[in-house]
């Protein structure tokens, strides 16, 4: 029987400093591992511990994966010290990702905030892989400051794509910023889709998700068509250790991607 707690030995190929607090690691597992966008993995620093993280790379790339990690704790501190040639472990893919197949023929509005850019980059790659399958595609992203916008250059370059309607914003601008200043909900008003039928995807810090959902609902989106990526303390990843319970679900097994209607009545969802 397969041992669900065993990490797969994985080589670190490269470590890229994205922002003062976020690093992207490019890794290659020694066994075949693939993921669907929105699913997460557990990254092991041998002897130190594990953290849950959603790959930020293209799901079509099945050999090399990327994770963009914010430095916040014991394990992420070690991840920030990784360099090419180091060995880590990977467990997964875990949980349920975005049901991209069901997005076919729909209008999509993706709203991201701060650290939510990482999993959403993977989603955007997947949507770009399927370019032409959707009626329209919007990306609205917000960060605290231009300096903290992960993949800023790449994201700004998406603006040249004919298949994407892109707008970005920052809470506080600087001399390099020519775009909108304000929270992400201030750049949603020009979206022109058939709201009751459109798909919304929201990923970011809890407070941002809370307000983005409120706004999308006011605009006419349906609760069952807004996809959220929830963050709880996922540890075992298979619905056993109990740490990430969210109402009648485990975030790790039943999520991390949920439609809003499934979880809106649970307590503690934004805490």
């Amino acid at each position: 029987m397969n041992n669900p707690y065993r990490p797969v030995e994985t080589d670190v190929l490269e470590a890229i400093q994205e922002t003062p607090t976020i690093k992207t690691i490019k890794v290659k597992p020694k066994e075949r591992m693939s993921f669907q966008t929105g699913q997460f993995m557990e990254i092991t620093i041998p002897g130190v511990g594990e953290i849950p993280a959603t790959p930020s790379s293209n799901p079509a790339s099945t050999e090399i994966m990327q994770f963009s990690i914010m430095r916040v704790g014991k394990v992420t501190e070690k991840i920030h010290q990784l360099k090419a040639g180091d060995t880590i472990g990977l467990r997964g893919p875990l949980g349920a990702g975005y049901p991209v197949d069901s997005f076919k023929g729909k209008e999509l509005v993706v709203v991201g905030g701060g650290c939510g850019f990482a999993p959403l980059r993977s989603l955007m790659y997947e949507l770009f892989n399927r370019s032409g399958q959707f009626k329209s595609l919007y990306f609205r992203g917000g960060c605290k400051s231009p300096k903290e916008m992960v993949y800023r250059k790449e994201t700004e370059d998406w603006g040249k794509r004919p298949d994407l309607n892109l707008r970005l914003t920052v809470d506080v601008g600087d001399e390099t910023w020519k775009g909108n200043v304000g929270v992400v909900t201030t750049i949603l008003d020009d979206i022109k889709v058939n709201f009751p039928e459109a798909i919304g995807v929201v990923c970011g810090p809890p407070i941002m998700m809370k307000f983005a959902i409120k706004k999308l609902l006011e605009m006419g989106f349906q609760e069952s068509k807004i996809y959220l990526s929830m963050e709880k303390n996922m540890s075992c990843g298979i619905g056993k250790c109990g740490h990430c319970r969210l109402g009648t679900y485990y975030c790790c097994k039943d999520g991390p991607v949920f439609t809003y209607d499934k979880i809106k009545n649970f307590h503690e969802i934004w805490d």
Partner: protein
Amino acid sequence: MSKCVFLWSGDLKSFIGKLSETYQVYLPVKKGTQRFYKKYVPDLNNIVMGEVRPFEPLKAFFFRAKEVVAESFENRVPSPPADKPLAILGVKACDLKGFKVEDFVFSNNTDPDPFYLKNRERNLIISSDCTCAIDTCFCLALGLKPFPQENFDLNFSPIQDGYIVEVGSSKGESLIKQHTSYFKEVAKVQEDERYRQRNQVLQDVETNLKQFDVPSQDRFQGAVERNFDSKIWEDEAKTCVECGACNAICPTCHCFLLYDQKDEKKMERLRIWDSCMIKDFARVAGGANPRKKLWMRLRNRFEKKFDFFPKVANVYACTGCGRCISACPAKIDIRKVLKRLVIGS
């Protein structure tokens, strides 16, 4: 009724000795006023097959308190050093109900836990009737009887001069066949004796329920949700010292912590029992914690047992064993909390 045979009390030790050839046998031994599971050795004294549940919950033999679950990047499932399967004797009905929850978590899922499954497959369970009740017993409130009705291989009902042995599985059946010389037919008077004795213990537990005014489980539905914003939680959590004894001692609590360690040669991943009463239980590295306050964590414990499990697995994750009542240094009494939730004040 399933097949029953009689074992003379004078043959119990010899039968256990036979079992110990194939199994590592654990059985309840009385020390002071408590019963503890002890590893069988030939000169073991004070064995108690009857009475009430031992101090430790049965889950400890299946979901170990501390276990290596991965070594380096190898896929092999680490095995415990002693490779004999376990035979656990004197298991009570309340602990057997714990399997309904533990099985749901560890086996009944798309990702079964190989450690738990292996123990469930290999270990032998010889349960026994309760022959008395202690004042913390309230199994009847959870719809259980103080004698095992399912989830055992063999069940022993202590009667005068011996035990009525009931077969509960094919594993138990073959054990009887294998040691057929020990067993005799059950006489009608012996069956009657078991019936009388079981009724007596039922009455004892019934008396407990009346004395402590414990509500029955058919009044639990919606009780946690209705009282989610109630003052009950803060009130009950006032004396809690966040020790987690209630979790460790509970036959249904299944939460665990994974942690990694390494020496020069290898790394190990260990799994230890965790407690949802501890402050960091649901905290994420970024700092967010959905249950910052102790009373929120007490509420979560009740929500998990009396709201989550009935919704996802159709079972209340409480067996009425009363261990958490005796273990709590703050004297938080689950019966009292349930009563307050049911009446709503």
